[in-house]
């Protein structure tokens, strides 16, 4: 009991520190790094794809896979169903490759461009192995190219592979051939298909049978160049009985134009394996008038292939002009478990259409969805979720809780639940609430000596508690900070 209370007290002093830190309303990660980079001419055609593939020294099978995706993509149409508005994207006006110029092969961090290291330092990402005390292995992706991966050796001893996907394509072709596109096929959807054609890098994680990854693995994504799209590809495979917790963070400089981010993340969990995937997404959201910002059109999907496997997605989305993503789980193995915990914050002119898909195929599969949407300013926040129970999914269970919080009266929140049940033994529960940050709540906290800004942060953090609890400690702290910054000045 005492211990619990001490923790509570510590947690709150931590909270106060976080709130103290919050002094600026500006996007703090908006700087541009002046770095010598190589960018391919705008536009997309087979030549550009061959160029990217060649730049990455890829084997022919990979080039062919990309071209197949590209040819398929040419026949596809951009989806129009999301509840978001944006001008037509000219896909020929985007550069599909930008890489920091570097030596052909980096042996250690000493060889990484010091400008780049400085950038990551500014972002608070520990790349210097000497200084890493936090015990998080980091892969940093700068304009679609992985620039540094830490703790490689430690992981190697356990048989864990954690490397840029471009490297994995060359060094572990058998694994890539087996798993790449096995969860999100190149024909999947407009943006995933585009990604399959043009992805430049991303992370690859492989945890062999029976291994519990001893540290959190983390990738940090940064878009730096102007008018480039970022198309990274992440693939995580956990073999029988393996466990891994993976963190993803993102930022981008302030730009007046919109930039496209179309990533694909695939997770594969075999028998008794568990993958925990956490995202704190803070792409540049655009300014107050809605100028600039990242279009975040991402496909994330996990396959619980084996029995008793588990995949959980936890996301805190505060950035991007438009967010369009539905991290989902395909619950194929019997007794497999899928979880989705999400906080999506929109402020000013931001738009979000996000949620999850839980596809129950195996027997006795279970899924939990907890979605917290917070809208402020003139923003629009939609939850869209699909729960599908297949005809063989005996005793499948889903619980969905979908809460929206509105700040002010110019924003909007919507819920679009889709439930498809083909098996009569299934149990599907859906709960939804919408609340307003009440003047009465703020006054109550004010009356106890707490400022309006801290009061709003407190109410919002309380609202998101269930999701923050799912995040690894360090990320939870960052998430709270981000939330405070994103919502600053939106009430009172």
């Amino acid at each position, binding site marked *: 009991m005492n211990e619990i209370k001490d923790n*509570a*007290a510590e947690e709150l002093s931590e909270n*106060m520190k976080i709130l103290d830190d919050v002094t600026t309303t500006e996007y703090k990660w908006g700087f541009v790094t002046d770095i010598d980079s190589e960018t391919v001419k705008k536009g997309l055609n087979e030549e550009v794809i061959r160029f990217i593939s060649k730049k990455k020294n890829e084997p022919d099978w990979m080039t062919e896979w990309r071209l197949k995706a590209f040819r398929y993509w040419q026949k596809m149409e951009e989806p129009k169903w999301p509840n978001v508005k944006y001008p037509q994207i000219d896909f020929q006006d985007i550069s599909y490759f930008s890489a920091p110029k570097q030596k052909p092969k980096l042996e250690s961090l000493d060889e990484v461009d010091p400008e780049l290291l400085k950038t990551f330092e500014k972002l608070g990402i520990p790349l210097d192995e000497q200084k890493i005390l936090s015990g998080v292995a980091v892969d940093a992706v700068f304009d679609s190219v992985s620039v540094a991966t830490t703790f490689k050796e430690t992981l190697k001893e356990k048989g864990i592979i954690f490397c840029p996907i471009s490297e994995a394509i060359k060094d572990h072709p058998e694994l890539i051939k087996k798993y790449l596109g096995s969860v999100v096929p190149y024909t999947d959807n407009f943006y995933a298909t585009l990604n399959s054609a043009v992805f430049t890098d991303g992370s690859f994680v492989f945890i062999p049978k029976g291994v519990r990854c001893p540290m959190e693995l983390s990738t940090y994504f940064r878009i730096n160049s102007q008018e480039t799209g970022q198309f990274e590809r992440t693939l995580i495979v956990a073999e029988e009985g393996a466990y891994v917790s993976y963190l993803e963070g993102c930022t981008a400089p302030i730009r007046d134009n919109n930039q496209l981010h179309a990533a694909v993340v695939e997770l594969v969990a075999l028998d008794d394996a568990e993958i925990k995937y956490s995202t704190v997404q803070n792409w540049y959201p655009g300014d107050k008038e809605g100028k600039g910002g990242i279009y975040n059109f991402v496909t994330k999907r996990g396959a619980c292939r084996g029995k008793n496997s588990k995949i959980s997605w936890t996301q805190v989305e505060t950035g991007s002009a438009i967010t369009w993503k539905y991290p989902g789980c395909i619950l194929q193995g019997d007794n497999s478990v899928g979880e989705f915990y999400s906080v999506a914050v929109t402020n000013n002119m931001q738009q979000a259409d996000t949620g999850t898909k839980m596809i129950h195929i195996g027997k006795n599969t279970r899924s939990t969805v907890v979605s917290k949407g917070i809208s402020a300013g003139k923003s629009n926040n939609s939850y869209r979720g699909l729960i599908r129970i297949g005809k063989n999914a005996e005793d499948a269970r889903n619980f969905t809780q979908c809460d929206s919080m509105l700040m002010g009266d110019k924003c909007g929140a919507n819920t679009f639940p889709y439930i498809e049940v083909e098996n009569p033994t299934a149990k599907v529960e859906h709960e939804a609430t919408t609340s307003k940050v009440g003047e009465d709540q703020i006054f109550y906290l*004010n009356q106890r000596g707490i*400022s*309006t800004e801290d009061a709003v942060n407190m109410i919002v*953090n*309380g609202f998101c508690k269930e999701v923050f609890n799912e995040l690894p400690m360090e990320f939870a702290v960052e998430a709270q900070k981000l939330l405070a910054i994103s919502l600053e000045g939106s009430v009172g």
Partner: protein
Amino acid sequence: MLAIKNLHANVEGKEILKGINLLINAGEVHAIMGPNGSGKSTLANVLAGNSSYEVTEGEVYFDGKNILEMNPETRAREGIFLAFQYPIEIAGISNATFLKTALNEIKRYKGEPELTPKEFLDRMKAKAQILGLDETLISRYVNVGFSGGEKKRNEIFQMLMLEPKFVLLDETDSGLDIDALKIVSSGVNIYRNKDNAVLVVTHYQRLLNYIQPDFVHVLFNGKIIKTGGKELALELEDKGYDWVKDEALETQNV
């Protein structure tokens, strides 16, 4: 300690307080009684700085400072505490987090050192005990899932934690059974001393059996129409409010 001069206030454009004059000194307990709609809760909320109420005229000095120019959090840090008639729920925030934040804000304002986590928890436990509150209260979310009685006790608990100089009890007795009423009253009595003051807003005399006031004021139609000692409360309980109204009408006070 508190001087209210000719206070007028509106709610949604309608005048509710029509010229309140009241002087409260340190060490005193005042009770404001009156029928429903007389403006009792409005007075409590106006003093605490609730922005739903608009002050149109008058002055309120607290320790010589004009509090009408202060936002509610500054008033709270100066030492004004309102025990709410309807305490608010805050999901996901534990009482510990809430009170530690509040206490530190107040301490910082006064230039006093913050409590260490240990000091804070010891204080929480000691004060919870006074009110017969279970220790699990500390980690429970603010007022979420609390019964009506527990919420009221939690208000008094917060008062003991924050040690204000001036306490407004807004219908703290409503919805309490006799046992809870005794506990809440004993909390207030433990808090009372020569340096602080209490303003009890209540509809019924019952609470005043346990929290004995030095002065009783009758509020009617936005004005204080009669002031007396604690025996006035008994008289009101006995005879109702009509005779005071009639008396006031005769003296053209209303």
